[in-house]
């Protein structure tokens, strides 16, 4: 049963990881189409090599394949992210407040796009996908400390950009 070639195992791995592989490539290049392709390519490769890759290694295998796929091939585009609808009730916010919010988001968008690729990936994987530093470290194939460094720098840079320091 502990074999990626088993359809059950493969399907479980796909359901658990495909969305993150997609996001990962999207945070990197800002291209949705390429992100979809990356998911397909990465999992096809995994299936073709299912006998050689253990289920434990499958995750980092996927990110390695997805990463290598677009080395030097595509130009990064702007990453466009949406925001979850505000859940707080007081929708009778003042126009000034709403405008301020809008301006803040625009600043954040720009700041995110200006971030170095690896800082943006780390920041967004944590903030959007809720990935722990250890998980991100595994995906990127670096130490947890390196991820903490990226995160620290990402926060610092974003704040400076937004606050106009």
């Amino acid at each position, binding site marked *: 049963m502990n074999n990626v070639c088993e359809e059950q195992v493969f399907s479980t791995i796909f359901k658990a990881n495909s969305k993150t592989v997609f996001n990962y490539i999207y945070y990197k290049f800002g291209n*949705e189409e390429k992100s979809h392709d990356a998911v397909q390519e990465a999992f096809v490769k995994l*299936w*073709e090599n299912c006998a050689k890759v253990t289920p434990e290694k499958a995750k980092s295998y996927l990110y390695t394949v997805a990463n290598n796929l677009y080395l030097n091939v595509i130009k990064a585009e702007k990453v466009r992210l949406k925001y979850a609808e505000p859940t707080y009730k007081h929708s009778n916010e003042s126009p000034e407040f709403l405008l301020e919010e809008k301006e803040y988001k625009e600043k954040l968008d720009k700041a995110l796009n200006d971030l170095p690729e690896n800082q943006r990936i780390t920041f967004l994987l944590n903030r*959007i996908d809720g990935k722990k530093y250890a998980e991100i470290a595994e995906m990127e194939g670096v130490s947890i400390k390196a991820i903490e*460094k990226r*995160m620290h720098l990402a926060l610092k840079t974003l704040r400076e950009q937004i606050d106009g320091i």
Partner: protein
Amino acid sequence: MQENYLAKWLNGELSGEELTEFKKSDAYASYQKLKDVSAKLKAPEFDVDQAFEQLKEERIGNAPKVIALNPFKKFLRIAAVIAVLLTGSYFYVSTLDKSVTAQLAEHSEVILPDNSEIILNAGSKISFSEKNWNEKRNVTLNGEAFFKVAKGKRFTVSTDQGTVAVLGTQFNVENRDGFFEVTCYEGLVSVTYNNAETKLPAGTSFLVINGKIMNTARPDALQPSWVNNESSFDRIPLEYVFAELERQYNIEVNSQNVDKSLLFTGTFSNTDLNMALKSISTPSHINYKLEGDNVLFYAEKAPQ
């Protein structure tokens, strides 16, 4: 403040002391806002199920299926070979001639596909093609048989000595070593012997002994006597009478000082050997001795 304290703070790993210190800093409010707003960020839509379907259909759908199909293909191959062999052997077997044999001292009855009847006398064999029967009614005979042929197309009996052709009638053909006799009991029979055709109306016989066509008496019965377990002879050399005796009883007949070309006219029983031996020896003025399966005929002046 420790290294990468912003990352630690975001992950809730700062100690109480550090957190208090951080909260006092000017930048804290900005970081808090960044933390709150970024928590509401959303990535583009991604449909996991749809992506999985696409993967299965377009990309990996073929690979595992090919493997799964392999044993079935192998099975199909074997099945095809078996089917070809079965069909082939069916056609081969069905074109083979069917043959029926009557062993020594027994009779056999054969019903042909058109309900014609053949009764085989002892030590006789016929063969015919069941499949082509409707196209060609032909029987190959070795030995002696009585035919009751159903009306229809030309019916032929092939022997190594001559061919007998009829349309529908009852007749007897005896084809033994050096002895060929056809007797017609009903209708009309045509006998081809040495490329000469002879028509036999009911109640006549055609007899060839050692290549010589003989005159025969008209049979008065409706069917050959052997069908009723008697062997009848009308001026037939003793040699052939002995041969018939051997076949009817599955015995070995020898003779000493007996002229086997003497003509014999008479009948012997096919069921009672002692009676049969008397029937042959008395009119021929010879004696016999029976020992097990051996019979010796000898002249009156008995040898030692």
